[in-house]
């Protein structure tokens, strides 16, 4: 049987328990400040001198920057394995997240490692063609402390009734 690439699989091909360490990223002071300028433009979140006396005693990554970087690393990882599948037709959009927690501050220079595990395939059919894949996602810093976790439900296209070739 032809090997199956990560993004070129039907819902039915995605196994429970599949686990990936899919990306690492070192957060720069510049990207932390640029994200805050767009989404948390307070001086104590964007100016290092003023951040020194904030509740975190310094600049930290906005919570949604940590999570947005999860998305970027996931897209990059999937594209590496997509082998020409670039429209995301089978692994599609996220519909909901649960139990998202930011547990530790991420400061300039911190390096996060992101992991992903398929934990459930809820029995639902959406718009007659999509299934739901639920994954647990975590990020760990360079001290091996968990800094973020969440579960996400992502659409995955079900194999059509008339298809018996997983590569179709």
């Amino acid at each position: 049987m032809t090997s199956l690439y990560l993004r070129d699989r039907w819902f039915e091909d995605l196994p429970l328990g599949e686990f990936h360490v899919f990306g690492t990223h070192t957060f720069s002071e510049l990207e932390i400040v640029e994200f805050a300028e767009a989404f948390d433009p307070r001086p104590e979140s964007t100016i290092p001198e003023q951040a020194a006396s904030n509740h975190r005693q310094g600049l930290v990554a906005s919570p949604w920057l940590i999570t947005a970087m999860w998305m970027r690393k996931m897209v990059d990882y999937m594209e590496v394995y997509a082998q020409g599948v670039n429209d995301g037709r089978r692994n599609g959009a996220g519909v909901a997240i649960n139990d998202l927690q930011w547990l530790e501050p991420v400061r300039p220079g911190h390096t996060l490692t992101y992991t992903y595990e398929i934990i459930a395939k809820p029995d639902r059919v959406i718009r007659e063609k999509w299934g739901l894949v639920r994954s647990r996602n975590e990020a760990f810093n360079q001290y091996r402390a968990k800094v973020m976790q969440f579960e996400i439900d992502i659409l995955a296209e079900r194999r059509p009734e008339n298809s018996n070739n997983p590569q179709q």
Partner: protein
Amino acid sequence: MATSTAPSGHLCSNSATLDKRAIVAFAARFDPQPYHLDADAAAQSIFGGLCASGWHIAALATRLIGETLLDNGLPFIEMTSVSHLTWSRPSFVNETISVRIALGGSLADSPITGTHSQTLEVDVCNDDGAVVATMTATAAIATDPADGTVS
């Protein structure tokens, strides 16, 4: 100031417009998938048109939440958790979004020193009043060091 308390007791935010430049800039950096980058590809996708990354919506909504809490006397520090978030419909180019917040319970416990936790039920709405996302979240609110009250 446009922030107001609706008759229902909700706090309502100002609005923010998602123009094409902002949608594409965010997606290029954090969510570079065709339906967030290219109008033609997006037209063929599940969304049917160029739309903002869901993470862009979440970050923008959180900016509006923080501003609204600050305007209403709650010294917002940071979002610390989101127990549930649903994206119910895409946000297309030039849609304007705002948030409607119902304050839930308040807890002394918070992961950030000097803060307490405030639970929030949030609807993210577009210009037509349609809900594009809902979120149950917890924010860290600065606790007044003078009296240590949990408001």
